[in-house]
């Protein structure tokens, strides 16, 4: 009889402790919730036997035939200063013709900002391609830990390059946040070689123009929408500093600047990693 009671007590104790442990485990990270494991978006770049000469335009018709990937953008908040407004979405499309690779970016912007003056900034967009095969995830922050090749299209530079117009103002500002030096100095030294800057970075604050500028680009604004096309040779000689596309799947990321809201430098809207599939 006593044995029964003893065994019963033991069982009850073990069961209650087990229950407590199970409950604590379930709540070991606060309120238990469903953990979503979102996959990165995949942007496909199919093979098309077409070519775009940016002197003629950006071939909107060709792009309309391709499906777009909607990439969510977030405020860049990891480094001060922050942007004041968010461009929530950018639509991306891509294709290649075995010789060149083309990217198309479309996003909403109320105003077309192509002039650089005191306190007036240019709209812009960029695509970032990490150079390290084994990309480490934190290198979303400007190529941290493994370099990144950044293709930075600026509306003001696009204007200069394609219209070769004179500068409207010769004033400059010398107060700026770090990383923004190149943004606020409107007096440029020479006419740009392209509308898109071919840059390399290894972490925040180290954006450097490359010796050879390989990228071409052009953008048009109409009725509150920017449409920008960027193109480059599919494979380049210098794979140390140029993004490679001979890997079937590789990572890339995008950013958008809204000049009217004061976006420049780190004040931008950025995307998470996107997988680029070159077919």
């Amino acid at each position, binding site marked *: 009889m006593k044995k029964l009671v003893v065994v019963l007590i033991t069982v009850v104790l073990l069961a209650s402790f087990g229950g407590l442990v199970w409950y604590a485990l379930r709540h070991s990270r*606060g*309120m238990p919730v469903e953990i979503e494991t*979102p996959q990165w978006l995949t942007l496909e770049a199919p093979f098309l036997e077409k070519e775009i000469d940016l002197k003629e335009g950006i071939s909107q018709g060709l792009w309309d035939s391709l499906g777009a990937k909607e990439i969510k953008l*977030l*405020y860049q*908040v990891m480094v001060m200063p922050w942007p004041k407004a968010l461009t929530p979405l950018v639509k991306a499309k891509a294709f290649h013709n075995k010789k060149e690779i083309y990217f198309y970016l479309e996003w909403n912007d109320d105003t077309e900002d192509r002039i650089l003056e005191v306190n007036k900034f240019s709209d812009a967009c960029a695509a970032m391609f990490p150079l390290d095969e084994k990309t480490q995830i934190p290198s979303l922050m400007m190529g941290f830990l493994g370099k990144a090749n950044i293709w930075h299209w600026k509306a003001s530079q696009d204007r200069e390059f394609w219209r070769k117009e004179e500068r409207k103002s010769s004033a400059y500002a010398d107060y700026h946040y770090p990383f923004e030096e190149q943004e606020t100095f409107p007096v440029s030294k020479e006419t740009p070689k392209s509308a898109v800057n071919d840059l390399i970075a290894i972490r925040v604050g180290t954006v450097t123009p490359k010796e050879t500028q390989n990228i071409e680009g052009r953008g048009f604004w109409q009725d509150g929408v920017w449409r920008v096309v960027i193109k480059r040779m599919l494979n380049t000689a210098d794979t140390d500093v140029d993004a490679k596309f001979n890997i079937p799947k590789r990572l890339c990321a995008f950013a958008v600047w809204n000049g009217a809201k004061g976006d420049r430098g780190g004040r931008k809207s950025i995307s*998470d*990693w996107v997988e680029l599939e070159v077919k």
Partner: protein
Amino acid sequence: MKKNELAAAALVFLATIGTVLGIFGFENFRKSRLYTVELIARAPDNGNWYPRKITVPFGKKVKILIRNIETVTHGFALPDFNVAVKEIKAGEVVVVEFTPDKKGAFPFMCTVWCSDQHMNMTGEIVVE
């Protein structure tokens, strides 16, 4: 002698059950009086912010108690109301205050690289 036993038993219950009840009672009282909402910071791998959507009334001061229950550093940014905590270290508890002066849905996110899915660590504050 019986009194001794009762006193001893009372002490045992006070020390155990009394403590537990007292602690939970105090915390519930404190939370309900002092804060509009308690926000737990977790990396997306572990469940993301909780709650991910916070609804607050327009025009009334909001006090959010943010608790980092993880072992990595997070941060908090609500750019639309210029609210920021640059970093919330593991185990830290911070309070942010603001008065919503516009209606709508506004994103908040983490400001310190905390995990592979850091960019996904976002939530929403809805002002009605």
